[in-house]
């Protein structure tokens, strides 16, 4: 079985993730925030490592949550009020679009969606055009989860800050794969999932806030400390963290970041090379459409394509059942981009991790070749 669905969840995980998670489950449970007398360093050490990894201004502004979806809901509900104008893009995942759509209906926020090119690139000028006096937030993906195209986020940030708005970057697809410097990139809110290119388990997400970005808390509950306060305590991080955390998930994220810090640079270079070569080979197969621009621009290693005469779902099943290659087909939870790709029913997406090999890529190309040959 060849796994090429890493954009959904990376697999396999590095060995240290398994080892550390196991150790954690076997060890005595920790009580976050409380007395350090038997302190495992959880979760505060991981907060520091995360702040370091993404250059967040302070470890206390790193918030651990169950998913990037939760993070986006929390920040959007906590930040937006009736009449606020929000600009987002056609690339976005339902984890961003759906809460915005619900807020549009329930809270009368005003939503504008910038278009993208046929390879999933959002021109900063198209964002600039949408800016109004009431613009409070520009929210955009760092990289499309469909085409992999990396966006000019520093330009988005500048546009936001020039108009007195916050810039939210959804880096779920890129974190761990493409270098992110929260402060230098001008992000007010950085959101990402732990289970993709950071190699954590499913069930851990993170958001990081700039000092001046202060959403209302989205959930409240037990904090272990200051329990006498009737509402959530006002200081970071606990203002945003209530209830028992997914500590195994936090440990897995830590192990994943340590793995990347130690081995990431070389592995990521090889992964990018493999991706570019595979994209080029895929493009050269007659009857195949590839939705990326492998020659220009920075790319996450997500290869979307279609075999022209086949529905994407059918190609997906054939690859999985006849060729033992797991890809994903359909909209990839990003419903708006496909109009721009001219692929209204979606794409087949092969997404690579650092553990994929040349032989995996060759098997994919061979299978697609085989399928297109059989159609003739």
């Amino acid at each position, binding site marked *: 079985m060849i796994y090429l669905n890493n954009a959904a969840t990376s697999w396999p995980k590095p060995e240290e993730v398994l080892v550390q998670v196991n150790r954690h489950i076997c060890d005595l449970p920790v009580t976050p925030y409380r007395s350090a007398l038997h302190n495992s360093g959880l979760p505060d050490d991981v907060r520091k490592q995360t702040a370091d990894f993404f250059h967040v201004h302070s470890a206390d502004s790193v918030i651990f949550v169950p998913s990037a979806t939760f993070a986006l809901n929390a920040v959007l509900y906590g930040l937006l009020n009736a009449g606020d104008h929000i600009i987002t893009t056609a690339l976005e995942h339902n984890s961003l679009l759906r809460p915005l759509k619900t807020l549009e209906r329930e809270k009368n926020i005003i939503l504008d969606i910038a278009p993208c090119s046929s390879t999933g690139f959002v021109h900063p000028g198209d964002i600039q055009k949408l800016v109004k006096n009431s613009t409070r937030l520009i929210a955009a993906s760092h990289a499309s989860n469909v085409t992999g195209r990396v966006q000019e986020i520093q330009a988005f940030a500048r546009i936001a800050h020039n108009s007195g708005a916050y810039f939210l970057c959804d880096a779920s697809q890129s974190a761990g794969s493409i270098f992110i410097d929260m402060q230098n990139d001008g992000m007010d809110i950085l959101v990402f999932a732990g289970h993709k290119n950071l190699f954590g388990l499913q069930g851990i997400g993170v958001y990081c806030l700039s000092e001046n970005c202060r959403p209302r808390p989205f959930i409240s509950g037990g904090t272990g400390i200051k329990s006498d306060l009737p509402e959530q305590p006002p200081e970071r991080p606990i203002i945003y963290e209530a209830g028992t955390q997914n500590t195994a998930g936090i440990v897995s994220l830590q192990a994943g970041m340590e793995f990347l810090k130690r081995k990431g640079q070389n592995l990521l270079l090889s992964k990018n090379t493999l991706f570019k070569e595979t994209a080029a080979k895929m493009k050269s197969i007659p009857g195949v459409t590839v939705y990326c621009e492998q020659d220009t621009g920075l790319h996450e290693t997500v290869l979307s394509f279609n075999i022209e005469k086949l529905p994407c779902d059918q190609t997906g099943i*054939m690859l999985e059942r*006849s060729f033992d290659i797991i890809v994903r087909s359909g909209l990839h939870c990003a419903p708006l981009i496909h109009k721009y790709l001219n692929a209204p029913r979606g794409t087949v997406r092969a997404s690579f991790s650092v553990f994929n090999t040349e032989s995996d890529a060759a098997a994919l190309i061979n299978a697609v070749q085989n399928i297109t040959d*059989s159609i003739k």
Partner: protein
Amino acid sequence: MTIIQIKKIEDCFDGSMIYEIIFNSPVTRPLLDYFAGLGALQYYNFTRPFYKITVLGKYELQGILNESQLKIILARDNPLQFLEEFKIKFKNWQ
């Protein structure tokens, strides 16, 4: 040969009517040929051959030869009637 389970499955689109049909034994070549007689067959002769049978306006069958399950994608108007129709057709084969 009988159907042991019919399970609704989903795709990315609201309103899709797709079921997985699980048989108590594999879909062999004679059965596939019988299914093919119901409509138009696309057959991909891989090591594990993939088939798709289109019964125009009613349903589509997709699966792997010699596996015990197939996917039926029903037309959106009257899908359950077409599912019943397929079940009767299958019964008639036996």
